[in-house]
């Protein structure tokens, strides 16, 4: 994946991402390379581009059979993130400058207009490795991409 590595380094040079983020992305690419070399089938459930972000909340141990227990199952298409990012094109330049200034005041040096679809694609691709598993006494929360 030399192309991806090049893009990450370019993003780092453009100060779009921090050194730590670049390090993480490069490590991710290295692990993907290793997984790709390991076998043609790869890891089950990790094939192809991710399509959905899943959020599941289930009752914890002991409350699983209770009909009163809270259960949440949300599936959000990742295309919605891509389409949402296109909304930035609707922001007129005056408004974008105001947003940039407001963010700068809060200590965030970021311009929405510099956000490119390639960057979003990379982010969405990187999400394929996302998996959050939280288990408290009452509930189990599982966030993943499929």
């Amino acid at each position, binding site marked *: 994946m030399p192309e991806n590595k090049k893009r990450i380094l370019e993003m780092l040079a453009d100060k779009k991402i921090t050194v730590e983020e670049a390090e993480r992305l490069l490590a991710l690419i290295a692990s993907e390379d290793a997984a790709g070399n390991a076998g043609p089938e790869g890891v089950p459930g990790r094939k192809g581009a991710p399509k959905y972000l899943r959020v599941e909340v289930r009752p914890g141990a002991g409350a699983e059979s209770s009909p009163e227990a809270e259960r949440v199952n949300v599936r959000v298409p990742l295309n919605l993130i891509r389409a949402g990012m*296109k909304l930035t094109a609707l922001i007129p330049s005056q408004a974008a400058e105001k947003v940039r200034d407001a963010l700068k005041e809060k200590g965030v040096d970021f311009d929405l207009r510099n956000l490119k679809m390639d960057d979003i694609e990379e982010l969405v691709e990187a999400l394929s490795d996302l998996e959050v598993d939280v288990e408290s006494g009452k509930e189990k929360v599982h966030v993943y991409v499929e």
Partner: protein
Amino acid sequence: MNRPPMFLGLRFGKRDGKFRLWLPLFILFPFLVVILLLMAPFLLLAALVLWSFGWGKPFLLFIPVLLNLLWALRGLEIDINDKGEKVFISIK
């Protein structure tokens, strides 16, 4: 290429009383096209007026972006069960 959502499924309510709706969205698309075509001259006129204020381009881009957002909703599924109360939204 994204395909537009074809069906909308809604379910609300408790176990005893439920509201169910299954809406074939593709039936609405011809109406949407007709409404857009009828509104096109007015939209273009509004864009021309707004152009000098810097809002013309965003205004013109609004409809394709909105349609893109609608298209991207395909596959969205929300299923919430809380104390016997259920909310289910599915866009296919």
